């Protein structure tokens, strides 16, 4: 497994404990656990800053066509490799142009506009696979934990195989092999990335939910529900699942930045989004693709590489802040700083 994967797994594991303090909270005045957690989250400065950054990121991604100053595909001839507006290199090269705030790339395309459109891909790559992962992981995890038996055994064996496969290598192989097939071309190659991310990551969530289910299913509230004849599926979804939501939310908060990093790495290796030429395309460029473009000009035009790298770093950091904040809020006992 890669370093990020190891960390993500550790985070999922520590998220598993995050729910146990629910009982302490309930014994107080009738404030809900979620209300308490929300108050704690708001008192965490890093998490609030991260949350604001994420809102900004989502806003930019959704309204990209309205915000972007230029068409991200427009080739401004004679204006290639412009430095950012505040850089004046007129003695040796071109000076910055206030019309192109963050400069232009080799073909004269506006870097800022491309970054804004790139945010879209990162947002979708972060969210869509996470939804699939949560859905599959929760269903299988609940079933394996509650019913046990063959599903449970199969899940555990499958986890062994998935954990043995270095996940970045799996993504690379999938993208290399299937890139030129019909599936590989859906949504400019993003569909394949969603599927690959989901295949690798749902197992971790399933194991997390399984562990939660195992610990809840012998508790009194489940026994009571069973004694009063509540059907099994309702016990799983209405009794056990809501009590396991804390760690699941925390795990999801760390899945999103992991997916964004994966897109960036694959893009950097030339295996990410297919570059779009059609201006009506929703997904025109991605930060990973921009990293790849920027790599070739690293010596003379470092801003081309720096701009997407900074974007990746900020967004990933924001999600991590919020994830840490959520973990602390949902279980004060597992706080990193205490």
């Amino acid at each position, binding site marked *: 497994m890669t370093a990020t994967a*190891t960390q993500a797994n550790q985070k999922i594991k520590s998220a598993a404990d995050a729910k146990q303090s629910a009982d302490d909270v309930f014994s107080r005045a009738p404030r809900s656990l979620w209300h308490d957690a929300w108050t704690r989250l708001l008192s965490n400065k890093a998490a609030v800053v991260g949350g604001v950054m994420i809102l900004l990121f989502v806003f930019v991604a959704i309204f990209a066509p309205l915000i972007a100053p230029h068409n991200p595909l427009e080739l401004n001839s004679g204006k290639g490799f412009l430095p950012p507006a505040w850089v004046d290199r007129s003695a040796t090269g071109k000076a910055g142009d206030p019309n192109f705030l963050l400069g232009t790339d080799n073909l004269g395309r506006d870097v800022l506009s491309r970054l804004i459109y790139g945010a879209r891909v990162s947002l979708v790559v972060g969210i869509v696979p996470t939804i699939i992962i949560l859905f599959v992981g929760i269903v299988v995890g609940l079933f394996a934990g509650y019913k046990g038996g063959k599903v449970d055994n199969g899940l555990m064996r499958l986890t062994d195989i998935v954990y043995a496969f270095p996940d970045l290598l799996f993504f690379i192989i999938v993208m290399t092999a299937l890139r030129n097939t019909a599936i590989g071309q859906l949504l400019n190659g993003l569909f394949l990335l969603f599927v690959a991310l989901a295949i690798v990551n749902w197992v971790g969530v399933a194991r997390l939910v399984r562990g939660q289910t195992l610990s809840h299913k012998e508790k009194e509230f489940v026994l009571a529900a069973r004694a009063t004849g509540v059907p099994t599926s309702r016990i799983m979804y209405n009794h056990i699942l809501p009590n396991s939501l804390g760690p699941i939310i925390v795990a999801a908060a760390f899945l999103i930045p992991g997916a964004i990093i994966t897109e960036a790495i694959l893009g950097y290796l030339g295996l990410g989004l297919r570059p779009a030429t059609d201006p009506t395309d929703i997904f025109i460029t991605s930060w990973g693709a921009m990293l790849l473009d920027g790599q070739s000009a690293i010596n003379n035009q470092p801003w081309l590489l720096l701009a997407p790298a900074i974007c990746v770093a900020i967004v990933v950091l924001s999600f991590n802040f919020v994830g840490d904040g959520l973990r602390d809020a949902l279980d004060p006992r597992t706080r990193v700083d205490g």
Partner: protein
Amino acid sequence: MTTYIIRRLLWLVPVLFFVALITFLLMHSAPGGPWDRDPSARQVDATTQKTLNQRFGLDKALFLNLDGGNPFDSQFINYITGAIRGDLGPSYRQRGVDVQDILFKPPKNKPFWESRFGYSARLGLLAMGLAVVFGIPLGIVAALRRNSWVDYSALFVSTMGISVPSFVLGIFLIIILATQLNVLTIIQKDWSSPAAWLVPASILGFGTFAYITRLTRSSMLEVMSQDYVRTARAKGLGPRLIISRHMLRNALIPVATILGPALAALVTGAFIIESMFAFPGMGREYVKSIGNRDYSMIMGTTLFFAFLVVLSNLAVDIVYGFLDPRIKVE
């Protein structure tokens, strides 16, 4: 314990088998043969393709040979039996060289650690060493001086290191060191001087360093509030002795258990850093083989990487039992 180790070792076989099977299936689901996959390159004519297919055994059945003769004479079974013997097959792109030679064979008259695996392993070990040497003390100091500036800066650095992926960090460092300050040449030709290794190794190890710092700190904090530490203090032991004899011994157990997977991750996960710095290791070779669709090379490297990962996970589970007798291996 022995039966447990044997059982776990035996379990490696099916796990690696499935990793090989998945990789093999994916490789063969790609459209076209290995010779005509890159439309931009010169196309190979049909006769040459046929000869090449025959030479590499690609004209054989995928899984079972049903056309008469030996039923097990198929591509997948031949690959697996070869891999068990340590033969990962010929590279499709580097003429006359086997995959295991690319990975493990040093240049002529050079020791083994000059091989590509040797380079990657040494880089990974160096990164790991840096992470441990800086991470553990920083974590300890941060825990002992909780809420001091040391603690806050340690927390800040470790949050950065855990969140920001190493290759983004690498981009920042390269741009600052190489293009702005001119203190580093990006494309190193000479890897014999230790200084050349320092930058890629620190970037590679930064995430692990951050993780070790955080883990050391939180497990030290946990240990500090334990009863046996209070007892030790009550019977008049000096703080130095309490820290080294009572606290560290227990606090470092979780740290020790992540070292194995972390090292495997460093050795197998370095390919972006390696290609960024043109480092002559396995990772860069792997990235090159993606670029020119060298399928046997991709497959062999993946299998070897998976082997390293599984082995390190097994090592952790075994070591855990020795380090912490409270944990019983079932």
